[in-house]
């Protein structure tokens, strides 16, 4: 046997003290703690940096708008004015009464530039009223439900387990240089029948609410009906179920049909659950393409 082999053999026989593993585990634990701390500090630092930057930008911008009439005017005339409108949560609150939880987020539109006109205020006012109305209605529904539940033999404990929730919130469908499209929704988690939604579509170039007529032209009703009929026929072929006219299915759109604007700047007509098809289909959407 060569010397090296003997040495190797003896080397492999070096006994490993039990303490080794204990010490190593200790080191690893220490290191993990440090890592955790480091990450937390880093995160805090980033947040602080963002806050500081945001504050500085805000101050500069406001200062410029307030001190320089030229700058303020320029801002108002910039062609990208669409980007300067923003939708923010104006007020959000959550309440709970009689085990009915209500969560409300009220959106509001804000123009950063001057000269917003009264339109924005009108829209905001309308949104606010609608949200409150949704909330009141939903709470009333829930209260009625509670009374009925208790009268028909349910105990308050059982009622508490129901976890009734009312959520009023908004979703931005599209926000680009031309359009702002969003929906305000009210959802009651114990029933499908009471969901309500209202769509808002704004043309940011004119800063006015935009209608289907504005988008599709005077014959928008015929155009949309034709397109929807065609799409229903196609979807039926691929197995989707729609109500027939007798069952209360699609017969034609009304003037106040719900729609939003998608990324191609095309209107998308929305039918709520149960409107024209069984509830299992959920909301049904039809993109309307205007052919030139």
């Amino acid at each position, binding site marked *: 046997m*060569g*010397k*090296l082999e*003997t*040495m*190797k053999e*003896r*080397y*492999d026989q*070096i006994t*490993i*003290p039990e*303490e*080794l*593993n204990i*010490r*190593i585990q*200790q*080191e*690893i634990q*220490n*290191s993990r703690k*440090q*890592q955790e701390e480091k990450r937390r500090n880093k995160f805090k630092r980033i947040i602080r940096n963002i806050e500081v930057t945001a504050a500085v930008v805000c101050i500069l911008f406001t200062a410029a708008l307030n001190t320089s009439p030229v700058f303020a005017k320029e801002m108002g005339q910039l062609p990208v004015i669409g980007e300067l409108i923003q939708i923010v949560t104006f007020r959000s609150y959550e309440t709970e009464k009689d085990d009915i939880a209500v969560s409300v987020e009220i959106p509001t539109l804000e123009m950063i530039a001057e000269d917003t006109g009264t339109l924005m205020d009108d829209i905001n006012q309308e949104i606010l009223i609608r949200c409150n109305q949704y909330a009141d209605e939903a709470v009333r529904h829930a209260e009625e439900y509670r009374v009925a539940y208790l009268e028909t033999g349910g105990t308050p404990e059982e009622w508490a387990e129901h976890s009734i929730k009312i959520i009023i919130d908004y979703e931005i469908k599209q926000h680009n240089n031309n359009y702002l499209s969003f929906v305000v929704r009210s959802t009651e988690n114990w029933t499908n029948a009471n969901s309500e939604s209202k769509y808002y579509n704004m043309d940011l170039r004119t800063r006015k609410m935009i209608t289907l007529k504005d988008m599709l032209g005077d014959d928008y009703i015929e155009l949309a009906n034709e397109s929807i009929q065609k799409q229903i026929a196609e979807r039926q072929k691929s197995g989707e179920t729609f109500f027939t006219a007798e069952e209360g299915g699609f017969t034609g759109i009304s003037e106040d049909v719900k729609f939003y604007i998608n990324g191609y700047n095309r209107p998308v007509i929305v039918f709520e659950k149960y409107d024209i098809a069984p509830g299992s289909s959920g909301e049904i959407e039809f993109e309307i393409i205007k052919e030139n």
Partner: protein
Amino acid sequence: MKQILYEKLIQYILQNQDRFYRVAYSYTRHQEDALDVVQSAVCKALEAHESIKNENALKTWFYRILINECLTALKKQKKLLLTNDDLNQEEMYYEKGYESNDDIEKELDKLELDIQEIIKLRFFEDLSLKEISCITQLNLNTVKTKLYRGLKQLKENIQEADIWVN
């Protein structure tokens, strides 16, 4: 990404702790010192884990730290021996049982430190010459030359060793 490497490093350490200890022991010949060496190597590696470039380099990167720690410990031991006249210190240096064995270890000890190191890594730890060149940060040819010189000094049959190297 960094997080994944960190976890890989921990895994690697846990799986190979016995090897690390043997390396440390082969340098220090002393249980407490060897434990200290491994522990501080692990500590340093975990602290510096962000400097690992990729997973493949993990092994050689760790060995480099470990061997640096071994050399530091050796220096400390020597200092202790020089400043302390007590001859009993000698016993701390060579653990009992180890010394009473053949003189083979002593023969290895007579070689230059870096040659010892290369022989240990190649034959005891079974690392490739390329890996050793990474750990020692010596040119691959230098590693080869030193290895051959070491084997010659040990009067080891080069022919036989040649097969091992390949």
